[in-house]
């Protein structure tokens, strides 16, 4: 110890102390520099860039969870539900609550049917998801499975049944071509739909009014602003905006009339369109055969879809708005009206029909359907008995240009503007059309067959119903509508969809229209009328016109088969009409593919439709 101290004393204490003090002062400076650096850094992060980091922090913890709005229901005009939302049950498992997954599966299989595919899909999902998220194991449990599980739920902690709303069409096939259906959103639709509004929505209208009224039926998406932790688990709900459910849609369809029309067309291929001529309201829109839209809601199985898609009866094809048929004699009243309004014929003018018609300098005989001829024919008689020769003569006098412009007024050759998509405009031939499409001039013979609704003429059942409505309306063109009204959920007020008037045909002489309507009345009321048989026992007067359209040739790709070919070559049966004759309430068009004569096949169907509407709506 003494040594230690003596050594110290030998040193230059003063110099050492001075040197050391110097370094301590530098140390203090060093400390202050470091402290200042830290404070500056903190100032920069917490004060200068505070807002930037606040935003980042908010983005970290807050996320938006969409709440899908409930799709609006669809009713018929009388409030019968056509489309509704039913709970569908899914078995869900929260992995973090399960200790032994394989053992759980074994126990679950005792009460619920779980396929190996379900199990594989579930495990794939499990590897990609957070442990606390409930994952679906089985979709679409049936009522029995739900009941069995519910009783034993206490044995399965971490397993639950979740109910989602799924679109359901309680009437099945009824009105499917008007109603359409919803299906899972596909990739193309995903691009077209508003991403924000369809966040979380899985289904979208694919067809019919489900598609055309999609925006209103869908509603507005709601959201939950939630706080999540780093793993994505929801900690609490910060804000919630309830979704606005979609509007309920009421259709003009009368389920009773629709059902009657479908029943009348049972086992046939064809279409019926019935509408209120004054308002354009579609009372029934039938295309047969149909299909069950419910199979499409959650994805139809491939085999079932192929059966529908490749069936010769084409059940997926909406004949009522897309089917293009030669209108045949159903257009004769309008051709007749063209003759009257153009002052080419008069009620008293009569023509002798000897069974055929010939153009000058032409040997070709344009035959009447009645080989021996009708004899002397006025316009009224020609319509009543559907005399072809009279209209050959009149068409020739009118010429194709006047036929084209007059028939255009009744909506031929263009879409009616009905509120569902996919409608065809048919075909109303003209000189211009033939030059542009066929690169040929128009021949006078073509004018003759155009005048009896054959040749190039094509019209949809909807166009025929529309044209009949315009006639019944004395020229007022009201656009056909399936939508009747909209109702905001939880309210009682209906917001009616107003009829849209497209225009009015200028009337030269009202008596001309009266004459045509009377002629059409005679088709049913006169014993010589082609549809006289359907008027028997009717409590109201019907104006109508039968049609029998020839089907030309064999369709491409079809093998020659005598039975089949003959069936396919049989004429299409048509009927158009309206009732009651005074103050018409319903106009109807009927087409039965290869149905033979319009008089025998189509007209009785129309009667059934008229009865079901007019008699039920006038119970007194």
């Amino acid at each position, binding site marked *: 110890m003494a040594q230690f101290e003596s050594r110290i004393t030998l040193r230059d204490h003063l110099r050492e102390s001075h040197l050391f003090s110097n370094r301590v002062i530098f140390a203090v400076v060093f400390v202050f520099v470091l402290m200042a650096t830290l404070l500056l850094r903190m100032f920069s992060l917490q004060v200068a860039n505070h807002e930037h980091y606040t935003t*980042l922090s908010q983005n970290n913890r807050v996320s938006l969870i969409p709440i899908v709005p409930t799709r609006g229901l669809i009713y018929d005009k009388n409030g019968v539900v056509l489309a509704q939302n039913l709970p569908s049950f899914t078995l869900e498992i929260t992995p973090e609550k399960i200790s032994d997954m394989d053992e759980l599966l074994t126990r679950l299989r005792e009460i619920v049917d779980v396929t190996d595919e379900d199990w594989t899909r579930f495990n794939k999902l499990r590897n990609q998801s957070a442990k606390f998220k409930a994952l679906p194991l089985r979709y679409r449990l049936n009522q029995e499975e739900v009941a069995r599980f519910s009783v034993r739920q206490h044995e399965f902690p971490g397993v639950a049944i979740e109910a989602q709303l799924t679109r359901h069409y309680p009437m099945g096939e009824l009105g499917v071509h008007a109603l359409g259906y919803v299906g899972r959103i596909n990739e193309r639709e995903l691009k077209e739909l508003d991403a924000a509004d369809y966040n979380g929505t899985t289904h979208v209208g694919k067809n019919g009014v489900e598609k055309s009224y999609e925006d209103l039926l869908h509603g507005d998406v709601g959201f939950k602003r939630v706080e999540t932790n780093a793993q994505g688990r929801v900690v609490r709900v910060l804000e919630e905006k309830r979704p606005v459910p979609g509007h309920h849609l009421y259709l003009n369809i009368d389920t009773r009339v629709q059902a009657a029309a479908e029943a009348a067309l049972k086992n046939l291929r064809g279409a019926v369109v019935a509408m209120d001529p004054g308002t354009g309201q579609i009372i029934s829109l039938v295309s047969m055969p149909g299909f069950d839209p419910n199979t499409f809601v959650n994805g139809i199985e491939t085999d079932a879809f192929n059966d529908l898609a490749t069936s010769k009866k084409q059940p997926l094809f909406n004949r009522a708005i897309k089917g293009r048929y030669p209108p045949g004699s159903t257009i004769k009243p309008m051709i007749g009206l063209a003759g009257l309004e153009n002052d080419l014929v008069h009620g008293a003018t009569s023509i002798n029909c000897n069974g055929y018609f010939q153009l000058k300098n032409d040997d070709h005989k344009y035959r009447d359907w009645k080989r021996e001829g009708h004899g002397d024919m006025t316009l009224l008689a020609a319509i009543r008995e559907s005399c072809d020769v009279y209209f050959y003569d009149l068409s020739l006098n009118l010429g194709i240009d006047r036929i084209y412009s007059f028939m255009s007024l009744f909506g031929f050759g263009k879409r009616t503007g009905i509120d569902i998509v996919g409608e065809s405009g048919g075909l109303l031939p003209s000189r211009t059309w033939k030059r542009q499409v066929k690169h040929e001039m128009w021949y006078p013979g073509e004018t003759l067959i155009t005048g009896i609704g054959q040749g190039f003429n094509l019209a949809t059942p909807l166009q025929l119903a529309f044209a009949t409505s315009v006639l019944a309306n004395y020229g007022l063109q009201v656009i056909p509508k399936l939508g009747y009204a909209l109702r905001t959920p939880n309210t009682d007020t209906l917001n009616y969809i107003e009829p849209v008037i497209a225009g009015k045909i200028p009337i030269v002489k009202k008596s001309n229209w009266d004459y045509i309507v009377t002629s059409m009345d005679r088709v049913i009321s006169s014993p010589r009328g082609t549809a006289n048989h359907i008027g028997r026992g009717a409590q109201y007067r019907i104006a109508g016109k039968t049609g029998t359209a020839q089907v030309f040739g064999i369709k491409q790709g079809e093998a020659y088969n005598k039975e089949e070919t003959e069936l396919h070559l049989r004429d299409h049966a048509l009927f158009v009409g309206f009732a009651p004759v005074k103050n018409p309430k319903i106009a109807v068009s009927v087409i039965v593919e290869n149905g033979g004569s319009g008089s025998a096949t189509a007209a009785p169907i129309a009667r059934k439709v008229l009865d079901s509407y007019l008699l039920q709506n006038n119970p007194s």
Partner: protein
Amino acid sequence: MINSNQSQKYRPWVDRRKKGSAMGFVRGMNIDKSLFLGLLVLAILGLVVLYSASGQDWATMNRQIIRLTIAFVLMLLVAQIPPHQLAFWTPWFFGLGLLLLLAVLAFGDVGKGAQRWLNLGIFRFQPSELMKIVVPMMVAWYFSEKGIPPKFTRLLGGIVIIMIPVVLIAKQPDLGTALLIGAAGGFVLFFTGISWWLIGGFIGIIAAAAPLVWFNLMHSYQRQRVLTFLNPETDPLGSGYHIIQSKIAIGSGGVFGKGWLNGTQSQLDFLPERSTDFIFAVIAEEFGFLGILVLLSVFLFIILRGIRITFQAQDTYTRLLSGSIVLTFMIYLFVNVGMVSGLLPVVGVPLPLISYGGTSVVTLMIAFGILMSIHTHRKLLPS
């Protein structure tokens, strides 16, 4: 105030105990009240923050309270040992420390990809922690043998003393601790008064050696940390995640903070390691810039008190040792805050006294015990 107490403090605690009261016993002990108070305030602040950072987990809290208590008791015990006793045992401690480091390399436990732990049966022990105190003690002892500033040969000897443990620890590998221990030894050199030219030369050599260290000594994960530090946004979900989330936590705290227990970054798990290395970000988020001012003020108070103790130390050994302890403490603070706020790469340095964890607190408090001992065992000098 502090100065006026110095004369009373000098008396040996045995004298006071004879007066018989419990308070007398405490007063007679070699305690630096200011330092003690500063450390106590820091420890209490630390517990308040840990309560929030641990997700209000009392098990964690209890473990930390027990550790802190042990650490404080150890500090007070060490404070009672006169500095000349410490000086006497210093070479022995150093020799023991080197042996333990070799033992770690030979049969140490592997934890987190590095061999740092020595399993002593009852508890696991990190010899490198011990060296954080023993290395500056040894260097101070070595230079106090002869006068300062040291001659060139002695300086080289001192550098060898520093480099042996540094290399051994770097091989574990624990580059962070190795650098901090190197820094602690370096601070002793600084206080010996070696010329600024030499200091500049050292810094130059270290800068020149950096590429060598980068390619030969550093492991890929260590290199990754540095790269991530330089540009965290390149890997926002991988190694850059820590830094990004930490900066968000600090920045979103603003001036007043989000409030205790209300830090969204901390409470919702976005901030990793929030009760250990990144606890500073929790403070910044929940108490804001004002909270940081208070915290750094407490740290500054302790450091300035340590510098005063250094300034008043009476012989070369205590001067060099206390100076190194104080600056090393400052460096811990700077490296931790710098790393959490994105100024420095992520090296596993805890925030002194605040971060959850045992070994570092114990080492730190032993160092403060030495400071207390140095201050309270001064001899009264004639004015």
